[in-house]
Structures are given as C-alpha cells and as structure tokens.
C-alpha cells in the first residue's frame, strides 16, 4: 500500500501533486462554506424565476422567495437540495486524473469546470420545475408533486448528461482509434 502510494507520488511529480492537493483543498473549502454556496444557488434560482415572470422574487440567505396567487412562498436550498454532493464524483475523478501524466491538466480542469456548470444548471432547472409546479398546481400540491419525483427525474437526466459530457471532454471528442500493435 505504502509502496503503491510512493509510486503514485513519484510518477505524478511535484507539480501535479501540488495541483491535486490544491484542487482537493479548494473542494474542501467550498464544502465547508456550503451556506455561501447555497446562498448563491438560491439567488441564482431567484434570477431564473424572474426570467419566467414569477412575482416578487427575492433571495434571503439560502431561501428563494416568490408569490403564488398573492401568497409569499418559496423553497430553501438545504444541504440535501444543493448541487454540491452531486459534484463529488466529478471532483473525485478529476482529482485522481490530475495525478495521471498523460491527461493534460487543462483537460481535467476544463472537464471539471464544464461538469460543475452543467450540474449547477441542472439543479437550477430542478428548482425551476419545483417553482413552476407550485405556481401551476398550488403551493402545497405543486411542491408535493415536484420536489421528489419530477425533481429527481430532472436531476437524473441532467447528471447523466453531465457525466457523458464530462467523459467526452476528458477522453477527447473524436472516436477511438485503434492502437497500433506494440508500437
């Protein structure tokens, strides 16, 4: 085990190792400041709702507020609702690939950034679906219809597509070519 880790460190070299540690620290910092991130998500969601002509939209801390039929309502981006956890697999793979010399650093980071944007966007779409449900079917019923079932369906589709997108960026957009025999 220790011999294996030594080999990984030796193969990766100091620059990639430092990059990987910096990346891991950045992710850890972001997770530790999840309230700030959830605030950003709540305000992002408020902005999206504004585009779709919701009334009196605002964001307070980690909550997005808007009016449905004159009643002020909204949703809170809890730790279970944020996109942070959905990004873990992408960040874990990226962190490991930063140590692999044959994968360009820019490609790993580009794929991670793209996946982050994609997953954050998907989560915004999910929140929009919940908001739209509350506006269409009423606050109680709309939330009940959307926050688990439709919301999870949107997240599933979005995360799967984000995953494919991430892998495409990571492995290159062209089709696989045959590797020459023992070149």
């Amino acid at each position, binding site marked *: 085990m220790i011999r*294996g880790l030594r*080999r*990984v460190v030796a*193969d990766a070299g100091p620059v990639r190792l430092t990059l990987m540690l910096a990346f891991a620290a950045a992710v850890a910092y972001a997770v530790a400041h999840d309230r700030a991130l959830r605030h950003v998500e709540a305000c992002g969601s408020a902005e999206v709702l504004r585009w779709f002509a919701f009334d009196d939209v605002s964001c307070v801390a980690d909550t997005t507020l808007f009016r449905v039929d004159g009643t002020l309502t909204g949703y809170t981006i*809890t*730790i*279970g609702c944020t996109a942070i*956890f*959905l990004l*873990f*697999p992408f960040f874990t793979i990226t962190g*490991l*690939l930063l140590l*692999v*010399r*044959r*994968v360009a650093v820019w490609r790993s980071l580009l794929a991670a950034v793209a996946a982050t944007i994609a997953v954050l966007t998907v989560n915004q779409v999910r929140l929009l679906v919940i908001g739209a449900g509350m506006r269409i079917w009423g606050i109680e019923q709309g*939330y*009940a*219809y*959307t*926050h*688990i*079932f*439709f919301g*999870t*369906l949107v*997240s*599933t589709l979005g*995360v*799967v597509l984000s*995953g*494919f997108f991430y*892998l495409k960026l*990571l*492995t*290159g957009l062209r089709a*696989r070519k*045959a*590797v*020459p*025999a*023992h*070149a």
Partner: protein
Amino acid sequence: MLDSANWLLALLNAMAFILSVAFLAYVVMVLRPFLWHREIPLGDRSDFQWHIVIPCLDEETVIVDTVEHLVDTFPEATVWCVDDASADRTLVLMRWLETRYQQVRVISRVPPEAQQGKGAALNAAWRAISAEVGDEADRSKIIVGVVDADGRLEQFGPDVITGPSMFGDPGVGAVQVQVRITEDVDALAATDLDRLIGENARTKGDALLVRLQDLEFAGPIAAMQFLRRRTGSVAMGGNGQFTRLSVLDEIGDWKGAPWHGALLEDFELGLHVLLLGHRSEYCHDTFVAQDGLPKVRDLLRQRTRWAQGNLQCWKYLWQVLNSPKVPLSGALEIAHYMWVPLSQILGSVVFPLTAVVHLAYALGDPEGPEGWLLSGAWGLIPLAFLFGVLPHALWGLFYRSHCASLVSRRMALGMAAVNLFYGYLLQIAAWRAAYRVIRGNGRWDKTARAGDAVTATVREHPDRHPTATTRPQLQGGI
C-alpha cells in the same frame, strides 16, 4: 448536532442517488452498442494454426466429451489437456484420449508445482506449445485458445474469430467469444442460435438459476463487452479466450509468463495484452457453451473468486491509467470495472440505510405514513422502480429479443422479475471477497461441476448409474 445529522442524511441521500444514477447511466451506455450490433464478416480458419488448452482439476465427469467434441469439430486444432494433479480419474482418461486421437497432448503437473491456480496450469501449456511449434513458425499466426473442461465451442467459432475485425486484423492480440450457460452444452453447441427465433429452446429444461446465469452472460456481460470494444478495453474471460502465441510470448518476455497469480487470471491476461499495446476484441457472433451452476452455494463461491480476483487486479490500475498504450476511455472503463465490487459493498449498506431513514420519516410523520406519502414521498415508489428494478429487469426482456429467443414471452417476464433478486444475490459475493482479502485468503476455490455430485453417486453405487458402463475399457484400469 442537528447540522451534522442533516449533513449525514444529505450525504446518505446523495450517495444513494449517485450510485443509482451511475448504475443507470452505465446500463444506458452498454445497451446502445449491444442493441445495435451487426454481425461481423467471417475469416478463414486455415490461415492460422490452432492450439486449444483445457486446464483440468478433477474433471473426470466432463473431460472425455469435451475433448471428443473438440476433436470432431476442429480436427485441425491441437488439443492440450493439462492435468493439475487431479484426485480423480481425469489423468487416466486424458491418457486414453491421447492414445486414441493423434492431435491430443497431455501435460501432467505434479505437486509441488501443481494446483497453484489456473494461470500456472495455462503457463505449463504455453511452454509446451512453444516448444512444439519451434522458433521458425510465424507465432503471430498461431492462436492459443482456452476452453474449460465442460466447454463446447460453437462449430464456426474459428472462422468467425479470424474475420477482418478480429484476428484478421494484425493489431488484434486477443479475442474473447460470447459465453453461454446451460445444463446441456451439447444441445446448445449443436444449435444455430440465429435460427432459433420463435422456436422452442434447446435449453428448455435448464434450472432457473442456470438460465439466469445465461441471461447474465448473454445480456449484461455481453453488453459490457460491446462497450469495451468502443473504449478499447475488452476483457478476457476464462472460457472461450483466444490469444496469439506471439502476444503470449511478449507477455512472457515481460513478466516471466503470460498468466499470473490473480484469482481472475483471465482478466489479468487481458490487462497485459492491452498494456503491451495490442487490441483485444469481443466476438458475439459465436460462442462457447459451458455448464451452469444449479446451486446457489457454488455460484456464490465462483463469484466470490471473481470479485476477489478483481480486487487483486487493483495493483494494475495505476499502470493502466498511465499507460499511453491503453486508450484513456479504456483505462477509465477498467477503473470502473475494478470499482464494481466496492460499489456493490457500498450499495448494500447505503440503500438499506436510506430505506430505513425513509421508513422512520414515514412512521414519524405527524399525519402518519399516508400523510408522508401525500406530501410528495409517493415519488420514491416510481423512482425505486426506475433505479432499483428496471435496470435489472429489462435484461429479462432483452434476453428474449436479443439472445436467440431461448425463452417464451412469459418466461422472459418471469426472468425479468427474478433477475432483480439474482443481481442482489451476487452482492453477497463482493462482501465475501472483501472478507477474504482482509483475511489474506487467496486460495483458489475451483468451481464445482454440475456432474460432480453424480460422480460421487457413481463411486458409491456404480451399478445404479448408466454412465458408469459407457467406457468399460477404462474402468478396469482405475
């Protein structure tokens, strides 16, 4: 306190969601090439020289029929029977086969070298083949196949795997053919699977557990191999595995011998083929049939060995990830495959825990479980179907539509339902494998043959069993 509880719950939910989505995404990825596959063009078997190795340990119930099938169907092949110090009459039967058929060779391994695992037995065959063909031969035109002692290679197999996209391409170093599981290998091997559509199956009498194994090999495992064709990471299996002798030589030069000590020595060989820059291919248009395991205990023992072998191959992961000769897509696919036993272990903890948490929510809801359901939790029911049932069940339907219609529509639906439990049953093997790894137990547990129990009966009551007299000339010498 509340915050950390929320964190844990969120983490649990997120893990359940990510595992489910990853599994679903993988199923979608493997389905696409599987459902749209086209037949490959044939080659010419006479362009190559064939050597087929049968590693044997206590195979007296099956070895004669297997060798005779190979000799009848592939008279051009040299058949190498490797006895690994069997305790039964395997070696005696092999010697008899050797005197009867000129293309049969016997390699007898004795302790302390014997019983060191299948890889060691295959290496002995490689050395013997190497010595027989000599250095002058074009070793890239010599194909070494591995067939289990209960295996039946489909009659057109060599023509199919020498096609232009298989060994007809000099870049291809190894080919794995489709594996089919049955209780009647002769019937299946004699059946043209392409013409079975709409007909009654030849495997009609197979036990459900055996059919589920066939479903697994012809369905999800085959589909995984189709994906690997695209990513450049086709894995070798223990049965129906073909490699150029020149490639085995290269691995031998590099590592001392082609096969090594992992309990999943076939997968290990495939990794070495890839690491040397050769391509490995999967061929779905021919097959090798092998006996299924009708008992759950034997099946779990086999799968434990596979899962443990998988964990042992983690030592190659870093090398694979860094090798410029393995496409990155292939390296990631291999990493994913190695992760599977761990994800099974993780899933078997995360999913029940998630269920318990939701149950607690339901029971603790002020309006009771009904109120909890109406507040939106009803959505969990279709989601559980989507994530937990559908990815397993759909293989039952594809088994009928894409695997030669060996079952009726009703049976396909039944298998779709039962395959769900089969999938979860195999998770036990991952736990057992992890336990064996922690205990440092790397012993090779040979897969039991369905006929082994019959042999025991014959030993005790030879007069009651009809096959005890089918080869009387052999009985006297034992």
